[in-house]
């Protein structure tokens, strides 16, 4: 196997003396979907913060395509091919769905540096191939009919797909998805799953998926890491995870860990 695309090594994070992550490893090979599961408070979102650069770890190392990016800013990582979505929608409320993809793509093309061109009025024109690329992405994720709607008007499930589309518009090598189906109904969840599969098949993007819907994770992922209290308690392909006693204990609780009456 070649070098992994994204590799987190021995990550430790603490908030004011409380350990949130302790020595966590995560490996994401190219074109794979890696699941990250665990009960609430296990440290999944914290690990995402470290991977995307919004949090710095106390110790450990993050490598992206062979380069050490542990101290790199989110912007820098984005330009190196790392994108993410947020658990709580972080959409650009003043923009239409289409503009989300346009802005992401133009930043990828470094068009955010062309201030003079923008001032004289040339900045409105799409770059060569931009319209086609954006349309293709809208089609791939089935967003065509929402393209010109402002995002505050789209339903929650569509909003999550817009986040995914925006991430893909940066032409990433790996996308971090933070609970992409939370708050969605069965049909919307299915839409997200279809979109993920399509993006991987079409563009060869790798995904890291934090998700509470265990069935979905078992279905989608090639490889799963289970966190509990900031530690990796299991790691392996879906079948192995399904059978693991530790995972069942973490999720369902064992007899002594049952809630004590007040």
């Amino acid at each position, binding site marked *: 196997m070649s070098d992994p695309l994204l590799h987190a090594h021995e990550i430790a994070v603490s908030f004011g003396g409380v350990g949130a992550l302790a020595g966590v490893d995560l490996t994401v090979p190219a074109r794979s979907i890696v699941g990250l599961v665990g009960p609430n408070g296990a440290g999944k979102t914290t690990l995402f913060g470290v991977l*995307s*650069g*919004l949090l710095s770890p106390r110790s450990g190392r993050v490598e992206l395509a062979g380069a050490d990016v542990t101290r790199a*800013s*989110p*912007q820098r*990582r*984005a*330009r190196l091919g790392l*994108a*993410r979505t*947020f658990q*709580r929608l*972080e*959409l*650009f*409320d*003043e*923009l239409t769905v289409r*503009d989300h993809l*346009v*802005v*992401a793509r*133009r*930043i*990828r093309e470094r*068009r*955010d540096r*062309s*201030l003079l*061109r*923008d*001032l*004289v*009025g*040339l*900045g*409105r024109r799409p770059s060569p191939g931009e319209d086609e690329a954006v349309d293709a992405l809208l089609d791939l994720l089935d967003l065509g009919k929402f393209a*010109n*709607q*402002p995002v*505050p*008007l789209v339903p929650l499930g569509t909003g999550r797909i817009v986040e995914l589309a*925006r*991430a893909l*518009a*940066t032409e990433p090598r790996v996308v971090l998805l933070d609970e992409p189906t939370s708050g969605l109904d069965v049909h919307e969840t299915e839409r997200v799953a279809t979109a993920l599969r399509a993006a991987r098949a079409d563009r060869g993007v790798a995904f890291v998926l934090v998700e509470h819907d265990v069935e979905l994770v078992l279905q989608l992922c090639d490889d799963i890491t289970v966190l509990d209290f900031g530690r990796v308690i299991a790691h392996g392909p879906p079948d192995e995870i399904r059978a693991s006693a530790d995972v069942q204990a973490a999720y369902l609780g064992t007899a002594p860990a049952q809630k004590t009456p007040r």
Partner: protein
Amino acid sequence: MQGYVLAGLVLGSIYAISALGLVLTYSSSRVINFAHGATAYTVAVFFHWLNQVQGWSIPASAAISLLVFSPLLGLALWGILFRHLTHSPPDVRFLATVGLWVALPAGVQLAFPFSQGQILQPQGFATVPVAIYHLSALGVSVNANQVAVLIGGAVVVVGLSALLRATPVGLATRATVDSPRTAAISGINTTMVTAGSWMVGTALAGLAGILLAPILGLSNGEFTLLLVASFAAAVVGRLTSLPLTFLGAMAIGLIQGIAVDFLPSHGVLSTGFRPSVPFIVMLGCLLLYPGLRRERFEVDRRAGARAREVAPPPPLRGWRAAIGPLAVAVALFSVPLWLSTFWVGVVSQGAALAILFLTFTIVTGEGGMLSLCQATLAGIGALTTASLATHSPLFGWLVPNPFSSATGWPIGLAVLAGALVAVPIGLLVASLSLRLGDVYLALATLAFALLIEQLVFARPEFDNFGAGISLGRPIFLGINFNDTSTFFLLLAAIFCVLAVLTVNLRRATTGLVLASMRSSEQAAATIGVRIVRSKLLTFGVSSFIAGLGGALFAITIGRASPDSFEVLIGIVWLAIVASFGTRSVLAALIAGLLFAVVPQLFSEHLPTSWAMVPTLLFGLGAIRLAVNPRGSLFDIQHSVRVLRLRRARRSPTFEGQAPA
């Protein structure tokens, strides 16, 4: 020495009382009250009125002012304004309280006409003549007003600690401060707690105001200095900690008091040092406090309320989109045809201000940043231009004049130089505070603006006994711009060019990037937006426009005077621009014209006692943002578009476009 320490303790106590009120209201409702100084002013004027005009005794006046009037004022302001702001986007929260800061003193001066002039002997808690006690053991003399301050400070600190630590009300308050939602589900009436904290906070502001008046004077300007010192103390307490805020306030007061002992008794440094202490303290905190960084995310997360705004209807496309702007341009350029020379002169001032106001369109409208120093940057541009053009010294240093003209730099080049000088200064202020987030940028720019006002603008070479530096108008390309109409057309042309550039920027990639940053900095960063760089760029452009507009305004009125660019004028500017909308260049134009024309109309047709009405209206306009976050112009455009959509829907050719 002991005398200076005493003076410092007195100042520190006043700051502490005011700052504790500020922190109390901020922590219970997450609204930074930029009108805190204005409420202090209001209560102090009311107290003075009761005692001096109505002839009530001091205890009765004090009791009514602090126990009845202040709480009612706080309750009213909370009910009308602050209550609605807790869930507003940060820029609305900021602009609406700035509106109150503009409107409240104007309203007070209308209601109590005696406060329009200078109040020679503001009444404090001590009877006049003020008793003086000599404490021979300590070697100091202390007057009765100072004693009142020290007693007041002690009572407030002890009382507030006792209230918060030892009573059920205090427990409920602390719970609400920690987490309003959790407090609410555990059965605490958080609405009552928040309303109560605004009542107490306003009373504290009022107490500080009454104590301050006899010591430093009862004027809106002095109360702005009080406000900034309180802000600095609150920043020491990270806007939440009462004990740290208290310590910060005492430290600022002591430094200010003791420093007088070591400073020269005359000149700019003696008057300028006092306002620079809050700025330095604030800056030190912003740079050194590691904890402030984390709070930025807290602020950002609450910005989600934006999503509830109504989405704008689709804009016009094609040739139709050009009709409106063309009509405005035609109306603007034809002004000399249908107005007298005098009024063209007035409208010229408005056009120069419109250029200057584009700085707000860019920094706040596009960049989403909250700056209170744009007027100061404009002043820097104006004074630099004037110094160069008249060949007068800047800080005692005569800038070389490489040009053949005998008087100084050619005025066109001087204007450009003035605009360029504003850029690095703006960038410096912004770069120091930007990383910490919106609220701290607003506080730092305010402190900076006051610092420049007291330390630079007050220098005799700029102030020139209030007359400023005279400036001529340019002659170039063979055109003599001394003619009022010609000069107006020049200003109108400059405005149109800048407006087009601004709109270009907004519709281009830069505009998309800025829009993404305004909605979610985190998400923008993860698609590769370099946040700090983009913000600095925007701030730099806005500083340039501020400098340019300031210089042009100075040329229009014929002199560059620091009086034109005071902080308190700058906030009125911001309020009027905001009330029409910071996102629209047309709003900047309307705001500029109204700011010049309305006061002129009032002074010609109405008694002088009405002079504060325009300011009051401008402030109220900004307050209305709490209901209409995008400004009144957007509202009108929105209604027009909705009407158009409805009409279109009735016509048979309409193809079911989704209405907003």
